[in-house]
């Protein structure tokens, strides 16, 4: 499955949809460690669901508890502290759970449904005994983790008022082997790192995965032809097309909010500038034309302008420009000597970036109204921030020891987790948009 590019590269490219269509399970399962918790996280009891063996990978209550804990806003009760195991609301003795100092409780069970399985769950306020949610979700044995993430989303939204982003996905690049001969994989997994699947595979670098707004397509950069090119791949079928393989650099693809265009970086004449490619017509519009490096475009929420990185003032800083030909760019960042790779928060109010903070590259978030910058991460080589679609959490690339790993941080900086692979390096995480319920 890893043919080296040969003179018959074109044949290879034509075959790729077939090869890639056979999506292979990846071994780079991510392991989650909570590196910074929140002391005032809300205590919640997620009781093991009836009809299920405890501890398996499809243990619904365990998945829900882990999701809620990962958000940084909840502190799930340890199972060893639970004195009873109610599976329905009418079995809960609320005074017990008040003594255990749990504010909320989730109970449920998995049983046979009309076709496949049915997962029922209820959410209660422990202090008042009030039922806050009661739902039934049709599922299958293989779909239990996805159902658990859907339950997490509902519980999270009911208790915080913010839509949950647990039933979403990550795309990231995994690298195996030692330099100078490494192997690159583009992987798509669930948001908690489970179910990794390799969607592209190459002995040459793969970079910069970007989700289409509908979550169906991934754009990415591949050097498989010994030069960079941008591909768009449909995740369901594995089919892909090469959308930009112009002379020089083809990099940093970013989808417009309507999904019709890609902003990208080209190096016509040896200098990097930002362009917009209309996919259906293959029309190319040049957006920047500066002697400097202009790259890493990110669309404004209305699709009318682009944020990008440029070193036109001597060091890398972030600018904003109208997405029309020949528009004048205005500088956005003024704090610090290096700000790059802008990513806009889902509400459009904040810009995440890589900043040079006292000699270390870290993830920072800038309030676009006030200009205030707050540094969220604390390592030395942090990069590639990507927002969860609800804006509550960011994922980014970091180093675990000396290996590339992924980490998440809440947008308020209060909770952090690390996701590292069992072997090899992982990097360049891209959080998917909300996927249809």
């Amino acid at each position: 499955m890893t043919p080296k590019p040969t003179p018959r590269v074109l044949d290879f490219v034509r075959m790729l949809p077939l090869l890639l269509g056979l999506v292979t399970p990846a071994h780079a399962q991510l392991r989650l460690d909570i590196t910074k918790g929140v002391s005032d996280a809300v205590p919640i009891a997620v009781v093991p669901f009836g009809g299920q063996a405890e501890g398996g990978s499809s243990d619904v209550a365990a998945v829900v508890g882990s999701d809620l804990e990962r958000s940084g806003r909840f502190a799930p009760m340890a199972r060893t502290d639970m004195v009873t195991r109610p599976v329905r609301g009418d079995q809960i003795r609320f005074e017990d759970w008040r003594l255990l100092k749990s504010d909320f409780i989730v109970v449920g069970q998995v049983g046979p449904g009309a076709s496949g399985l049915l997962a029922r769950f209820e959410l209660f306020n422990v202090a008042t005994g009030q039922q806050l949610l009661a739902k039934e979700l049709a599922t299958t044995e293989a779909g239990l983790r996805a159902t658990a993430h859907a339950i997490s989303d509902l519980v999270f939204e009911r208790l915080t008022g913010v839509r949950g982003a647990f039933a979403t996905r990550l795309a990231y690049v995994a690298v195996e082997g030692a330099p100078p001969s490494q192997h690159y994989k583009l992987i798509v997994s669930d948001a908690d790192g489970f179910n990794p699947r390799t969607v592209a595979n190459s002995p040459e670098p793969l970079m910069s995965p970007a989700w289409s707004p509908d979550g169906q397509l991934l754009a990415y950069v591949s050097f498989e032809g010994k030069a960079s090119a941008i591909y768009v791949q449909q995740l369901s079928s594995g089919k892909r097309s090469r959308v930009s393989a112009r002379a020089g650099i083809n990099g940093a693809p970013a989808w417009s909010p309507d999904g019709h265009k890609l902003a990208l970086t080209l190096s016509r004449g040896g200098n990097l500038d930002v362009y917009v490619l209309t996919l259906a017509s293959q029309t190319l519009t040049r957006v920047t034309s500066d002697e400097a490096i202009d790259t890493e475009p990110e669309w404004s929420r209305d699709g009318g302008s682009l944020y990008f990185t440029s070193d036109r003032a001597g060091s890398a800083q972030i600018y904003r420009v109208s997405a029309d030909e020949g528009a004048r760019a205005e500088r956005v960042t003024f704090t610090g000597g290096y700000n790059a790779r802008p990513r806009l928060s889902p509400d459009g109010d904040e810009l995440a970036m890589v900043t040079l903070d006292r000699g270390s590259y870290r993830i920072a978030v800038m309030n676009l109204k006030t200009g205030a910058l707050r540094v969220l991460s604390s390592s030395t080589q942090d990069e590639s921030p990507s927002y969860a679609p609800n804006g509550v959490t960011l994922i980014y690339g970091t180093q675990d020891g000396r290996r590339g790993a992924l980490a998440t941080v809440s947008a308020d900086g209060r909770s952090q987790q690390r996701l590292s692979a069992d072997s090899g390096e992982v990097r360049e995480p891209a959080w998917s948009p909300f996927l249809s319920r």
Partner: protein
Amino acid sequence: MRLMQAALVAFLILGLAACQKKQTRPDEQGPAATAPAGDATTGGVDGTTGQPAADMQTAQQQALAALKTRSVIYFDYDSSEIRSEYLQVVAAHAAYLVKYPNARVRLEGHTDERGSREYNIGLGERRAQAVRRALQLQGATEAQIATVSYGEERPAVAGSGESAYTQNRRVEIVHAP
């Protein structure tokens, strides 16, 4: 056209002579070394008298082998300026490209791992372009040179720290085989 044909015929005759002279030393001023390289390659492939082309290629290959021991240019942090100690390396590669107009190089620009990845693609490109300009100033043609930037994606050595960084900030001059 007549001239070229005449040159080719002359070249083939000289080449036959060279064959009869046993093997010439590659660094000797043999006929192949002065023949137009483009024609020599064609003659070698199509003609029945492949030997002169082989001689010429040996000379070129030897020149290439000598270059390959000095084909990496290292850069300072955040700089695309060719340091003085590498000017001779660039000059040697330029001389080779001038001498063998059929020769092609690929300049692969790289950075260390610090900073943003796509921005580093830009820095690697800037280094590759600096070497391209230097080669062209010394007579290599645009058609002979291709550039690619890998940014920080293909480090020469693993690890973080200044010793790894200095080895990874580089342009590799890769000659077509």
